[in-house]
């Protein structure tokens, strides 16, 4: 069981800046650039500058990444948006090529970078199971053999002959995940699949992933859900700006990640809309945490309320958009999730323009320690995630020892992720005591 499943040596990937936002060139550029551009313009050049430098038009999404994965290991990849996690998985899935370096993979790979890849709305559930299965690498007779199991898992028996465009988003996701869950590769690569769907769906995915891990398969798993990483993976690798910062037991890596100085963030801004997280409907422009007096902060007194703001720009009008936040303890434990229920915009399509959505977290609520807020904008029906930034902000709650918070005059440890100042009352009943003595 201890043989190497994946070995990665000095893997590096260079991207042209602007490739992602300026989607494609025009023929005019091509004619101007001459025929030499016809063949491969991304010539590896390691000396093009380590990070985004104005003189070069390239940046390294991955730099000299080296690690081994033993077969049967479940390994999580963590890091901020743009740290290179997805690029790494794309290279290991053979979707894109590394610029330099080598990765060796021993065993059959299935990669699940999205659920329902290749699903077609016009096709029925049955037809999509076959199509999606084939796309994920299953053979026809294998799909036939597992067909009933897949339908069972997805709970869509009654609608199996219905085009999936008529499915609810929940049914659609269940069916898509069911097909993927019945793949039987030796190495499974999963990216953020759990970021979609409702709670019960996520639970189902997680328990299926647990089973897969227990069957001795190698699993590579990228997630922003740090508690999922600690519960599913024995080992975690933390990537930052394309480099491996830490590689070790998942608990340890996660807490290192959360305790790193990198992770005290009072605010983030995206001055350039083109590279801000989002899509052509909505893009985030800023996220910040404000104390009661309005200043942006990452340290909060336990008694103080705090406001979290999401500034976003609606580019395409006519969509119902719901800002959401998730608040996590520094070990990845999710304290709560909250969706914007402001009645003014509830179920209302938003016009194009700039919005600021603010959520207030009361004082005397969170316990002391580090917390992380992840935030995004979704549409609830049909379910769609427009963007999801995690961590959006990270902050420290400090307890006061003035005696007027929940801690009172206690000086020692006080466990718990929340520390509300609850109402207590006392009644003194001297008569009852007397009757008991009688």
């Amino acid at each position: 069981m201890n043989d190497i499943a994946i070995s990665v040596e000095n893997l590096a990937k260079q991207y042209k800046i602007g490739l992602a936002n300026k989607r494609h060139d025009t023929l005019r550029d091509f004619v101007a650039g001459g025929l030499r551009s016809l063949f491969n313009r991304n010539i590896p050049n390691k000396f093009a500058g380590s990070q985004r430098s104005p003189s070069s038009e390239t940046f390294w999404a991955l730099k000299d990444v080296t690690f081994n994965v033993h077969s049967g290991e479940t390994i999580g990849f963590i890091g901020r948006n743009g740290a290179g996690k997805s690029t790494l998985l794309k290279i290991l899935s053979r979707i894109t090529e590394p610029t330099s370096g080598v990765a060796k993979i021993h065993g059959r790979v299935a990669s699940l970078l999205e659920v329902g890849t290749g699903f077609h709305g016009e096709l029925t559930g049955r037809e999509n199971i076959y199509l999606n299965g084939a796309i994920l690498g299953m053979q026809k007779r294998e799909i036939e053999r597992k067909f009933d199991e897949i339908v069972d898992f997805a709970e869509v028996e009654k609608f199996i002959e219905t085009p999936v465009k008529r499915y609810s988003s929940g049914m659609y996701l269940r069916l898509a995940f069911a097909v993927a869950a019945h793949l039987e590769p030796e190495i499974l690569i999963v990216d953020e699949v759990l970021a979609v769907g409702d709670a019960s769906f996520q639970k189902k995915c997680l328990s299926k992933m647990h089973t897969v891990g227990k069957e001795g398969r190698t699993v590579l798993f990228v997630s922003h859900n740090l508690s999922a990483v600690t519960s599913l993976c024995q080992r975690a690798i933390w990537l930052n700006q394309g480099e491996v910062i830490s590689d070790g037991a998942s608990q340890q890596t996660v807490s290192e990640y959360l305790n790193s100085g990198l992770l005290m963030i009072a605010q983030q801004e995206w001055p350039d809309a083109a590279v801000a997280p989002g899509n052509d409907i909505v893009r985030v422009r800023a996220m910040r945490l404000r104390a009661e007096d309005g200043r942006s902060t990452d340290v909060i007194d336990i008694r103080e309320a705090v406001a979290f703001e999401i500034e976003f720009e609606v580019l395409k009008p006519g969509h119902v958009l719901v800002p959401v936040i998730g608040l996590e303890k520094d070990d990845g434990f999710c304290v709560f999730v909250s969706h914007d229920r402001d009645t003014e915009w509830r179920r209302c399509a938003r016009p194009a323009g700039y919005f600021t959505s603010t959520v207030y977290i009361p004082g005397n609520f969170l316990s002391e320690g580090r917390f992380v807020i992840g935030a995004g904008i979704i549409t609830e029906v049909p379910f769609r995630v427009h963007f999801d930034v995690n961590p959006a902000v990270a902050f420290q709650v400090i307890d006061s020892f003035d005696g007027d918070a929940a801690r009172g005059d206690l000086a020692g440890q006080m466990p718990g992720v929340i520390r509300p100042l609850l109402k207590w009352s006392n009644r003194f009943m001297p008569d009852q005591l007397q009757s008991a003595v009688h």
Partner: protein
Amino acid sequence: MAKAHSSSLITLTEPTVLIQARRHLFDLDLAGIWAYRELLYFLVWRDLKVRYKQTLIGTGWVVIQPLMTMAIFTVIFGNFAKIPSDGLPYPIFSYAALLPWNLFSSSLNRGGESVVNNANLVTKIYFPRLILPLSSVLSPMADFAIAFVILIGMMIWFGIAPTVGILMLPIFVILAICTALAMGLWLAALNVRYRDVRYTIPFLIQIWMFASPVAYPVSMVPEKWRWLYSLNPMAGVIEGFRWALLGNQSPDFSVMAISATVVMGLLAAGMVYFKQMERTFADEM
């Protein structure tokens, strides 16, 4: 249990895969395409299913489209312009040409759009990318087969018997497909980087049609330009169809051999170019 079934997964053809920047220009990974033949089948199947599912009369369009074109050609070119048709009834003269022409033009059209239209697959899943243009040039074969049945009906109606040249028909069909694939590979790869390509494809097809003997006979082309004209592989294919089915004058096989050689060269170069470009497909979409 996991081990017992894992052999059925076709994601990898060999147990160990080396991932690194591709170095060899001529590494076409044809074995990979063979390993993914079921995906090829399912993509063609999806294409056909989806195409006829939402339309009111489904496969009827496969028949109506060439018949309508034939009717328009007959009225405009046959009756008004009085273009000669080598002594054949104009409707069957043009229909016999529209059959391979439509096969070619829709293969080329689909092939050129194949990678861009499947961006969601290319950015999320590994498979040999050549499968995409391959599947899109294959799916019009089904339309061709249906439209062919109508041609047989028309031949019976007009009392025309095919010649022994009918044995050559598969070769003409293969040449048409290869020509479409050769061009389609170049266009599909260029389309990812230069989206203007999408708008040039209909033009290309239109110009190509006028340069092919679809609405008129080759005998109308001046003798001294005939050899140049015949280098267009579709000219040979269409002439070949008329010769095999309607007993027309046979195409010049020596010129056809030259254009077939050019097509094969273009196809091989197209594959190399496509393989070279596919390395950045996922990054550019």
